[in-house]
């Protein structure tokens, strides 16, 4: 037993540290033993407190009282500061003064557990398979993951981050599958985090990632349990933050951002086809408007003869150079997209109709934009929607603008150079010491069939463990 002074001293100390009004105390005397129960009203489930603490205590006497406390308490504490900490996490603290004047402090978990029900994440819908999504409570999320992976090697490490928020963060990985160097790197970076508050995952990501200025997301955010489990099974790490429904997965590669659980629910040929379509979508979303601009302004001779007349007809009365024309339409699409997300679903749909049909049609009739440009921009927008990762989708949207500018200055040459710079950039990027563009660069032919395509499970050789 550690000496805290008298019961009064302790109470004064705790009340001086926590001056908030929702700190409540209850004084009890059972069998000549003085008990004080502290709890923060707004964090505590009163029913739990009554059923699990008060009623058993009030039934017991003498010797048994200590035993009862032993059995219901989760932890004995050795300092008043620790007691304050646990109070703030929703526990109740019991201080017990024994006959000899010794004080002991006990912590009982009576936290209220409000959370929304488990539902499918809105942003990451899939057609079939598991529909579980994560929620905002760390313990429930860990439960969901552990239920998916019942492996003795599944390790959970807790961290408390943020000097103001003191947020609980969990690092989850499968010991036998992860790369030891990456593990050391991740744990070191997590342990050395100094920040005020961890309210969003972006705070954490920017602190621990290699290139905070990177154009591409170096980590994957997901709210899907099956996606987390699949990534853990591939030897990646998951970082869960209490209060957030999305999990950070690292280290990711470019191609893992293009994977979706749907690929693995489908037959492998279909899954591969869908994945290749997505990667084609990346190429279209980044280069199609640029290609169109370069063809219209530089290389008209690239188009087959039969097409030239119809394209020429639609382009000849447009007053603006192709770049401006493209910018007008791209900007419109971006605005529509943003407006659609911010608004309520029902209004969002009507925005889509007004924007897509009415503006598109009117703009062509008014002669501001050619109808070929509308096709190009629409195709580009659709292609950029197929990216399964929300953050990569944003990068892809931004990427095409510099390419458009380059192609309007240098034509095809500009696109080639723009794309070359992009490739160099992708070759350079590393995430936790792992090349971002793996397995294309550095090239591993054997891994390609599992990243560009999805090969059959029967071909797969499982790693040890």
């Amino acid at each position, binding site marked *: 037993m550690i000496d805290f002074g008298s019961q009064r001293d302790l109470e004064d100390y705790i009340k001086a540290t926590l001056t908030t009004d929702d700190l409540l105390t209850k004084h009890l005397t059972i069998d000549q033993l003085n008990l004080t129960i502290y709890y923060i009203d707004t964090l505590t489930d009163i029913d739990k407190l009554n059923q699990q603490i008060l009623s058993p205590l009030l039934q017991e006497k003498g010797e048994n009282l200590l035993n009862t406390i032993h059995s219901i308490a989760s932890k004995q504490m050795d300092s008043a500061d620790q007691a304050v900490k646990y109070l703030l996490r929703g526990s109740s603290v019991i201080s017990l003064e024994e006959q000899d004047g010794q004080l002991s402090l006990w912590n009982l978990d009576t936290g209220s557990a409000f959370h929304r029900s488990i539902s499918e994440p809105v942003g990451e819908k899939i057609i079939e398979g598991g529909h579980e999504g994560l929620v905002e409570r760390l313990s429930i999320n860990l439960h969901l993951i552990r239920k998916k992976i019942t492996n003795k090697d599944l390790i959970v490490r807790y961290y408390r981050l943020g000097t103001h928020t003191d947020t609980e963060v969990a690092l989850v990985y499968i010991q036998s599958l992860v790369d030891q160097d990456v593990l050391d790197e991740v744990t070191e970076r997590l342990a050395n985090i100094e920040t005020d508050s961890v309210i969003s995952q972006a705070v954490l990501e920017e602190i621990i990632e290699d290139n905070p200025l990177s154009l591409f997301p170096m980590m994957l955010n997901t709210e899907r349990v099956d996606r987390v489990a699949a990534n853990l099974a591939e030897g990646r790490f998951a970082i869960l933050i209490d209060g957030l429904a999305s999990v950070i997965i690292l280290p990711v590669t470019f191609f893992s951002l293009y994977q979706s659980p749907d690929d693995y629910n489908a037959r492998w040929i279909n899954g591969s086809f869908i994945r290749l379509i997505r990667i084609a979508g990346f190429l279209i979303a980044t280069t199609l408007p640029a290609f169109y601009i370069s063809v219209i302004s*530089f290389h008209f*001779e*690239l188009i087959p003869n039969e097409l030239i007349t119809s394209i020429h007809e639609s382009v000849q009365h447009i007053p603006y150079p192709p770049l401006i024309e493209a910018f007008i339409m791209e900007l419109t699409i971006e605005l529509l997209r943003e407006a659609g997300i911010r608004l309520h679903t029902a209004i969002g749909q009507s925005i889509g109709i007004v924007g897509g049909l009415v503006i598109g049609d009117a703009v062509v009739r008014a002669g501001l934009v050619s109808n070929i440009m509308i096709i190009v921009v629409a195709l580009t927008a659709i292609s950029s929607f197929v990216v399964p990762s929300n953050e990569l989708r944003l990068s892809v949207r931004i990427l095409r603008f510099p390419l458009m500018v380059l192609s309007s200055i*240098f034509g095809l*040459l500009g696109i*080639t150079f723009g794309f*070359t710079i992009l490739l*160099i950039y992708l*070759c350079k990027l590393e995430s936790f010491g792992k090349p971002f563009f793996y397995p294309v660069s550095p*090239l591993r032919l054997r891994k390609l069939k599992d990243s560009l395509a999805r090969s059959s499970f029967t071909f797969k050789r499982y790693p040890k463990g």
Partner: protein
Amino acid sequence: MGTRQADKISRLELFFFILQSVIGIGILSLPYTVFSESKTDAWIAVLLAGIAITINMMINWKLSSHFPSANLFDFLPTLLGKYLSKAVSVGYIVYFLAVAYLVLLLFGDIITRWVLPRTPVLAIYFLLVSTSIYLARESLSVITRFCVIVSIFLPVLLILMLVPLNSSHFIYIFPIGQTGLEAIFKGAKETSFSIIGYELLLVIYPFVKGNHTQIRKVILLSSAFLTLFYTFLVFNCVIFFSSEELEQIPEPILYMLKSFSFRVIERIDLLFLSIWIVTVLTTFVNYLFAASIGIKQLFHQNDHRHFTLAAGFLCLLCAEFTGDRFLVQKISDFLAKASFLFVAGIPLLLLLIIYMKKLRWHGR
């Protein structure tokens, strides 16, 4: 020079590094150059040149394999002494820069004539130089990774070259050997002057994983690939054009592709050029990298980034102020001779020095 494990490159990467260093600006004009010497036997000349190139590569390999953890700039002092080695180092750096500069000039020339006739050539130079600096300031492993990725374009180039075969006349190569041995050897000489780039092996050799025999295998493979690749190009041109035509067109491959059109893309030569740009870029980058590594070691620095920047802009400035077509031709001819010295001459000499030193050591 630090050879950390992380900087090491695999043998696959070495293979593509050599390929991407060699294949570049030359492929457009090579058939014309060889043809003007060896006429319809040009393809035999290229095959012969392939043997010469293989021998040169072997000399470079043999020389490097004596110094498994040192590159050219490291081992020069042990062979030539302090002052002479400095001079030779500077010679190599200037040579690398000169090749890069020539690549830049020829690139600007071809792009101006074929793709963007009204764009100021300085802008085209700037595009190539700035992109190259961006890559060349990285570590060797990033550069080789890039070389590997862009090598997927080589098959595309080859496939594009298959298109004209349909309307070629194999009869053009007959009678084989009509030009005589002398003309063929002359053509072979011209070819081996213009197929350079493998001498960069001297600079990157210590970074390659694997033992000497494994690396030799990769080098032999790459020389075989290069020989066949160039022979195919030249052969293709010879059977497509009649002798009179081929004597007048400096870029036969582009003219050849220009005469075809798919239903989707009307001008294949533009497609070809867009891909070819990347192979030119890798040549330029690799030379720039080698030069800046040389400068770095000459001044005993740790980082080559600043030197890459300086070297790149030096090439840009030189190209801008000497962009005269006749001058380009002169520089090109001169460099062809100089390349013989730096690719084959000096390495052979160094190799002899090593053997002499060994002999003397054994004599004692």
